[in-house]
């Protein structure tokens, strides 16, 4: 079955025939998908269909798991990120990742947000400005501005998750990968993160893995539906929700998926 990909005018990330295998198992099967500027693509699909594997292969985090083999290409602004000349560390600094559970480090709120900048030994004035800006963009600034020196672990789960978003944003990536970022949060915290993401999609490419079709409906412009490692269908959110072309998609969307 061929995926029906909408081709954005200028692709920031372009995935071609991406296949990921673990020994004899195929986790992703010839996935091709482009991500244009200013877009929020929701990646949905049943549990175990390969959503996490997909986003992790976009910034070479698949390499942190032993035994995974990646074929095909992922291009970032036209350059193959899997090229031998490309440093995976550099790729990850351009395409940040936010995980299912908040992953703050045992440091102050400020140092957490500044983490990526410290890695490249950014200058102090620059760090101050970038941290402030990142916390503002992540929608956390008003809550923490008075206590940036507080340990980040003392924040609530929702605040921690927004701090993780700020940490990823502080290095000004063009792409932000989010793997079920709200699944550990309560509805109020989820709403704040969703509002944050909606604001961000005006500036950067967002790839949001979610198991929650409602969330995809609320904030994404495009939905990509994965099933058993294959990209079944991708299109504008309204189209996928209201007029899916493939039966499998429709079944999943309407919750009748077994």
């Amino acid at each position: 079955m061929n995926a029906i990909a909408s081709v954005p005018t200028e692709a920031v990330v372009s995935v071609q025939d991406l296949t990921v295998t673990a020994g004899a198992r195929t986790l992703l099967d010839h996935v091709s998908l482009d991500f244009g500027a200013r877009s929020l693509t929701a990646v949905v699909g049943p549990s175990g269909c390969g959503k996490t594997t997909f986003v992790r292969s976009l910034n070479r985090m698949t390499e942190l798991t032993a035994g995974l083999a990646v074929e095909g290409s992922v291009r970032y602004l036209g350059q193959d990120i899997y090229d031998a000349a490309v440093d995976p560390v550099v790729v990850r600094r351009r395409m940040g990742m936010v995980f299912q559970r908040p992953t703050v480090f045992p440091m102050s709120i400020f140092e957490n947000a500044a983490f990526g900048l410290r890695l490249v030994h950014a200058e102090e004035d620059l760090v101050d400005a970038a941290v402030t800006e990142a916390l503002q963009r992540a929608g956390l600034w008003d809550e923490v501005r008075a206590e940036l020196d507080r340990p980040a672990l003392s924040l609530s789960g929702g605040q921690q998750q927004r701090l993780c978003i700020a940490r990823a944003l502080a290095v000004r990536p063009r792409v932000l990968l989010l793997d079920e970022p709200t699944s550990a949060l309560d509805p109020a915290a989820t709403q704040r993160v969703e509002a944050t993401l909606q604001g961000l999609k005006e500036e950067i490419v967002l790839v949001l893995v979610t198991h929650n079709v409602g969330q995809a409906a609320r904030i994404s412009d495009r939905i990509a539906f994965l099933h058993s490692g294959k990209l079944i269908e991708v299109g504008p959110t309204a189209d996928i929700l209201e007029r899916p072309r493939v039966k499998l998609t429709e079944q999943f969307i309407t919750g009748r998926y077994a």
Partner: protein
Amino acid sequence: MATAPILIGLRPEDNLALDRSGHLGRRRAFDRLVGWLLPLLFLVAILPIAWLLYYVGSQALPGFTLATLTTDPSGATGGLFAPLVGSLTILLLGTGVAIAFGFLGGLVTAEYLGEQWAGWIRITANVMVGTPAIIIGLFGYLVFVIYFHWGLSLAAASVTLGVFMTPYVFRATDIAYGSVPPHIREAALGSGARPRQYLFRVASAIAFPQVLGGIFLAMAIGVGETAPLYLTTTTVVLPPTGLFAPASALSLYIWTGFQTGLILPTAIRLAFQAAFLLLVIVIGLNVLVRVIAARARRRLEGLFQ
């Protein structure tokens, strides 16, 4: 729209106070028993230590003055300056050796080695912990005193004690770095940290308190050990004059003090004073370990969920 409760007559199980299936009485009796037993067990555990402290203190404190700490022993009288300085010097140098090998070894084992190599090294460390200290002492004697021609000396005693302390520091380091949650590692590497940046900036921030606790624990265990020193240095009445001069130690002093005490009773008082000093140092180090652990728990709360 609220639905009306369906109540068609009362059934026996509707009477909560009559339902005994939770065995409330039995649970209460058990709680009372535990409530009595725990303090009792605590007393059983603490009594010998309290009595030891009291007894050693009662023997040591009469006549214990500042001079006891600042003057050298002379014959069976005088103070404990030389063994105190000797013990602390040996302890500090030995700790340096233990950190050099134990910390680096633990770090490499936890972060870089494959499971198989790591497994062998962990077994070796466990065997070392279980090895009688006198055998470590014999090893030190054969290698440092004889083979390296260091003689009975501060250097030989320190390195031997360091060997004795190494597996404790190793274990603490290995466990501390091994217990950094995998999702934290992923997040750091996923943010573009190089493996070494992850290690120094993130993993160490999490592991450091536990490593420090392990170092102090190794010091508490090592400072009173007599066997590693018995064959590698010798009791002298003056503080060590160099690395290759003999250094006295409190633990050795207790031992020789009691032997001499059979002939010269004043030596016994000095031995008790040395024992008292050692106890104070050991308890102090243990308190330090507790304080570090408690502070780390507070700081890292919420990280390991």
